[in-house]
């Protein structure tokens, strides 16, 4: 037959040589990658996104079809993760555009000059509340907070105690919700912080913290990611959670026995989009932003993700009231950002009981 030892030692030698070569080769690759990081226009634009896979696939498809410009995307689990990545890459970004997540995440990026200014012609019809005064970023969708309620589990647990479905923020302080409620951790989840700030704007800080102590007593735990609230309520592990109405509606479409309940005195997130300052495909990136704000892009985001359009001429998503009918509080975004650190250090002990 053949000499196993010989075969083995030869293989090992070849492997060793390959690795040595590969190591050198990779260094060259690295250089090549670095130079090719200065992309030419034939390369696809790269989008960092914190939307989900399904939505991004559709956006890619439609955008490429309409404009003929190719795009690639990298998904992040949260807006925080995506903006961290942009900050980490600094002046030489590996992407051209950042989309998704609340505009609060875009403010610090604009301040550190990581975003490029752009006034899209399609932005002129929008309510100024959706736009950044210096044109560093533009809101391109909006969404409202909602309870996610599992109908089946509610009937077995809270409903069985004679309690009606919740309609106000106060309703979840009812002891009947003890350990049936999960809330997003405001320290790590965008919706969690907007919900927390909403209560402070609504009631004043001290009253709000009395409220937080009551809800924390009912909360089984605080989830590290926003999606968890929906996932765990969907599978019936818990009765009620809190997140964005649009995400709840999309989960309900998959067949879970859940629904979104939108309380009054609510607040919205404005989903951001921005061109990164280091891009070398400014023209294509601008076309992408234009497309996002166009009727086509706006209808797509509404249909695919159940988010509200920022344009007046687009109907609301199915199953929710019109944007103008929402009962919103006066949510001060600047103040919300300023007080964040203090509020969170006061809130955090509640999340570790």
């Amino acid at each position, binding site marked *: 037959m053949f000499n196993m030892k010989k075969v083995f*030692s030869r293989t090992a030698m070849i492997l060793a040589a390959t690795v040595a070569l590969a190591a050198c080769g990779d260094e060259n690759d*690295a250089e090549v990658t670095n130079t090719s990081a200065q992309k030419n226009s034939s390369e696809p634009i790269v989008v960092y996104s914190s939307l989900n896979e399904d939505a991004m696939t559709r956006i890619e498809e439609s955008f490429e079809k309409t404009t003929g410009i190719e795009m690639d995307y990298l998904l992040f689990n949260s807006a925080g993760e995506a903006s961290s990545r942009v900050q*980490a890459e600094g002046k030489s970004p590996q992407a051209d555009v950042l989309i998704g997540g609340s505009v609060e995440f875009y403010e610090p990026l604009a301040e550190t000059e990581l975003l490029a200014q752009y006034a899209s012609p399609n932005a002129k019809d929008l309510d100024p509340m959706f736009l950044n005064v210096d044109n560093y970023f533009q809101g391109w969708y909006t969404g409202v907070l909602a309870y996610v309620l599992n109908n089946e589990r509610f009937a077995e647990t809270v409903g069985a105690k004679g309690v009606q479905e919740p309609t106000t923020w106060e309703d979840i302080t009812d002891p009947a919700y003890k350990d049936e409620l999960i809330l997003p951790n405001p320290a*790590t989840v965008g919706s969690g912080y907007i919900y927390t700030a909403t209560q402070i704007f609504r009631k004043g800080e001290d009253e709000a913290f009395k409220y937080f102590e009551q809800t924390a007593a009912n909360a089984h735990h605080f989830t590290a990611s926003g999606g968890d609230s929906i996932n765990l309520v969907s*599978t019936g592990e818990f009765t009620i959670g809190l997140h964005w109405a649009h995400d709840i509606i999309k989960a309900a479409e998959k067949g879970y026995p859940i629904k979104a309940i939108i309380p009054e005195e609510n607040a919205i997130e404005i989903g951001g989009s921005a061109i990164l300052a280091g891009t070398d495909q400014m023209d294509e990136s601008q076309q992408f932003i234009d497309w996002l704000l166009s009727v086509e892009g706006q209808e797509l985001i509404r249909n695919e993700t159940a988010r509200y359009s920022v344009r007046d001429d687009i109907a609301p998503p199915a199953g929710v009231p019109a944007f103008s009918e929402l009962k919103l509080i006066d949510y001060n975004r600047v103040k919300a950002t300023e007080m964040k650190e203090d509020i969170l250090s006061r809130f955090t002990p509640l*999340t570790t009981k």
Partner: protein
Amino acid sequence: MKENMLQFKKKLRNEPLLMVLVFTLLTIMTFLIIYPIARVVMETNGEIFSQLWTNVRWRNSLVNTVFITILSTLSSTIVAFIFAYTIARLDVPCKGLFRIVTLLPIVSPPFIVALSYILLFGRQGIITNHLLGIPLDIYGWTGLWAVQTISFFPYAYAVIYGVVKAASIQMEYAAYNLGATKWQVFTDVFLKLCRPGIAGGALVVAMSILADFGNPMIIGGNFSVLSTEAYAQMTGWFDIPAAAMLATTMLVPALSLFLINRLWVGKRSYVTVTGKDSSLQPYPIAAWVKWLLFSFCMFVSVVVVLVYGTLVYGAFTTTWGYDWSLTLDNMVYVVGKQQEITNSIVYAVCAAVGAALLSVLVAYLVQRKQFGLNKWMDFLAVLPGAIPGVFLSLGFAFAFGGDMFSLTGTSLIIILALMIWNLPTCYSANAAALQQIGPSIEEASTNLGATGIQTYFKVLLPLVRTSFISSMVLAFLRSVTCLSVVIFIYSLKTSVGTITIIGLLSNGQWGAASAVTITLIGIAISVLLLTKLAFRLGGKTFEI
């Protein structure tokens, strides 16, 4: 010290080529191991460290991490030992099943276990709620404990089994003949011989648990640990000093564990290789003990099989956890994520080959050549075993993501990180194998006129073949299923399967996540089986 200097000078004069190799290796290893660690530590400052105890959440995370690491390590090691003992020593049926059960968690991303676990044992759990009718609250340390035990005991098993198998049966017979009771033989002879294996296994598990952050994220509830907190600081707040501080804090228990292990096992040799295979049958033990151990293994096996069965089933159902009708819809995501899956495999192969080759070379130099810096090289080769994956990832992001040595977005940065992460696994296996080979064989080779390089390739490598291949395959499997090391250094073109899975999970696409997971598991098992087959055809075999 003086002796080291003398050795060093002598070598430099007599074998300059060897010394060039030694220096190159030391420089590369220092650069890839010490430099990233230093970068993370440098990001911290005294002020942020003082907050570790005043910030309630961080203090709890520290206490929780120590608590769950000790608890899960103990349980994993005990389960691993019982499996190793049962498989190696007892004459019981179903050993094939037991072996598979010790393999499944190794070939799958660890955090995925938590998902099935919720479905089976959660508040709506198929087993706890529908079958047994007991509402169980698994969110928090209890659920985490159970999930980590199932996810990580196989890592300890891999180490302990080897030692149990090698422990000399003759010695036990000798003890019996000298009048020892069964219990005395077990504790005074058998356990003592297995001590390095158990300690080594426990160390591997403790490190994995310390660094684990997928499971705490999914099932931990309010039970926060350092790894999840570091991740939250990094991604939620971009608070680099805080993230670096929390990561550095993880390094302290990790390094202590590592030192304790070294001191406890010490330098004593426990190996009882006689060169002859023992034909002795293990001394029989009481039937009730045997069947008790068997039942225990059976129970764990059933849980593991259920967990993975659920995963496979979930991958083909319409709505995970609610609507169990069958569908192939989730496979769309597998097709759409080809690049990520391919990346997983390519990176794992490169990292595994690199780690195995480097480890054999280092083991050879450390053991066979006295160049005065042996201890330093040995230390460098085992040190990454004490670095939690998240820390390593953060270190590589800082060290090679900046302006000085920019590898951002390249495949190389991921391959190097995975290679370093796997180096200790490969090194300990190959160093142990090398230790059992007398230097006389190489002397013979040298006397017959072979050069050092010829001796290395033609004599040494073939002799450590088994451990070389085993450690390479293990490194491959660890890399394919690794999330923590990649988490801060992946990019558009270099994303991997585990990143895809965690993304799908956080979007609530649990069915799609299962589909990608079982694809990865399928690939890992195929590689394992193919390698086994290839070596069986060559008349050789290896253990994993």
